[in-house]
């Protein structure tokens, strides 16, 4: 049971972390505001779900809104932050603004999204009563991973991204616009994060702490999985999700400390992450 909980949470984490990891690997850009996309997706999705009753529409609109905001921010503001420190501080300012804006617009009362019809039950597999929704989440996460991996390894655009990760100057020299590709990756990452915000709605709810949780855990995921690696993000997200859940279930006192373990191991043996480039 805990494994399923952990794995499904890990899937959400993967969706959020993969965008952050790619943009960090591709452009060396530290985007602390990434959590804000989760919040935006979640709140907008919640509003849509309430007004139209359609969960799937909520996901779509949530993701799109997150992506749109990201695109606008990127054009107007984000590119102005040139050093790591200015990126950290500047994007931190952005996430403060956006989270407070959601508080002003929607209030801070924690809400839970209603489970989409038919997915709220339980199913019994191997003696364990497992929530269907969480199983669905795991499937969604795996599908997303496969889709992203396929895209990166098998398509031309993906090849550009891969090349950009390995050697941006070379790619520029060939004449491909790394900047444009990076911006697209940025926006897609934001869309995924927004979708995660909605998908997580039924199980973790929509509240002002969610973006922070995701942001910070995404950082742990990137440390463990490595920069710029989709496989790394997936593996690490699973590890973090499961470790955290299992840890909490077994020894509630330890909570976050369980994350120390994988991180410390990584740092000792592979300081660039499991699949890190650089």
């Amino acid at each position, binding site marked *: 049971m805990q494994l399923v909980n952990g794995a499904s949470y890990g899937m959400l984490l993967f969706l959020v972390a993969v965008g952050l990891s790619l943009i*960090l690997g591709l452009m*060396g850009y*530290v985007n*602390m505001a990434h959590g804000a996309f989760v919040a935006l997706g979640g709140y907008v999705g919640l509003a849509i779900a309430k007004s139209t009753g359609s969960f799937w529409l909520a996901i779509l609109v949530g993701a799109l809104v997150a992506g749109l905001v990201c695109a606008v921010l990127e054009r107007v*503001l984000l590119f*102005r*932050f040139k050093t*790591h*420190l*200015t990126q*950290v*501080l*500047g994007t*931190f*300012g*952005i*996430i*403060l*603004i956006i*989270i*407070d*804006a959601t*508080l*002003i617009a929607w209030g801070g009362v924690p809400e839970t999204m209603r489970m989409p019809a038919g997915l709220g039950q339980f199913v019994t597999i191997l003696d364990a009563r497992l929530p269907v929704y969480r199983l669905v989440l795991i499937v969604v996460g795996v599908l997303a991973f496969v889709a992203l991996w396929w895209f990166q390894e098998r398509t031309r655009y993906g090849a550009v991204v891969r090349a950009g990760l390995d050697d941006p100057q070379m790619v520029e020299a060939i004449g491909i616009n790394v900047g444009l590709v990076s911006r697209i990756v940025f926006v897609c990452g934001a869309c995924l994060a927004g979708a995660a915000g909605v998908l997580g709605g039924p199980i973790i709810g929509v509240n002002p702490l969610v973006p*922070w949780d995701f942001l*910070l855990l995404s*950082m*742990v995921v*990137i*440390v463990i999985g490595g*920069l710029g690696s989709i496989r790394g993000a997936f593996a690490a997200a699973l590890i973090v999700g499961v470790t955290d859940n299992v840890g909490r279930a077994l020894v*509630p*006192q*330890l*909570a*976050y*400390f369980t*994350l*120390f373990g994988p*991180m*410390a191991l990584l*740092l*000792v043996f592979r*300081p*660039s*992450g499991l699949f890190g480039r650089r």
Partner: protein
Amino acid sequence: MRGLLVVLAALAIGLTAAAVLPVFYRTLLVQAAIWAMFCLSVDLLLGHAGLTSLGHAAFFGLGGYTAGILSARKLLAGGWLLETLVAVVVVAVFAAAVGLLVLRARGTYFMMVTLALAQILWGAAQVSRGLTGGDDGLRGIARPDIPLLSLLPGGNGYYYLVIVLVVVVFALVHLLHRSPFGYALNGLRQSETRMEALGYNVFLYKYLAFVISAVIAGFAGVLFVYYNQYTHPNSFSILTSAQVLLMAFVGGPGTLLGPGIGALAVIGVQDTLAAATERWQLPMGLFYIAVVLLMPRGVLEFVRDLARSAAQRKARLERAPDAAAEQG
């Protein structure tokens, strides 16, 4: 002995200010002083060794919580001095152990690992209700009571203690900056390869800087907890780490007075905003962005640039009538 005179002057100014300023400004001064010490520790790593720590709140919080727990739960008989000593030692040991791992991460990894570290401690503080009081924090922490200082006007001996301690730490760190150790840190920020080639064990220097920085941050955390007389997991939060980084940035990294100026500016802005609205984080976010865009090299450089362009404009205006006369 110019240095000694400067220190005495700073003490004199600080203590007088603490005595005569009205309450709002006095509390601002003391808060700024504590944050300035915290910022000093961050700047040691950032402006000198070139390491960006996104989780320095870990040490700030750890120092504060240790002292706070000892005080609130009345675990020690030695009073605030012993509590402070224990807190500082705990932070030092923690940093010494953790530093060996954390410093293996380079560049952006280092930033994220330090962030994760603070986050883990935050979680621990939240969860261990028995020890830390969880989300409510601990109350009933006694401020250090120094009979001698209480005699001074203003009624609050603790404020004077803070000023004295902060000035002393600043003086010691200034010595550090000018020592071979300090130069080595600056050197390794500019080129690790070169420093290795000169015979400097770069990892060891970073490690020492890390531990020293942690201890100073922890000490600031202790002062902070005594000031507020309660602890809260927010001491470990990313907001705290980001705020102290902003202070370092505003003041201008790598300078001695930078942390002080940065602390004063940011605390001033924050207190003003918090007094005006409950949703102060939004304008605070704008402040972050404004600072980063407008003052990339700190507020002093910004003011200097403003002064310079004002002077240039003035010079041009003064020349203009002559030019017009020549053409006419």
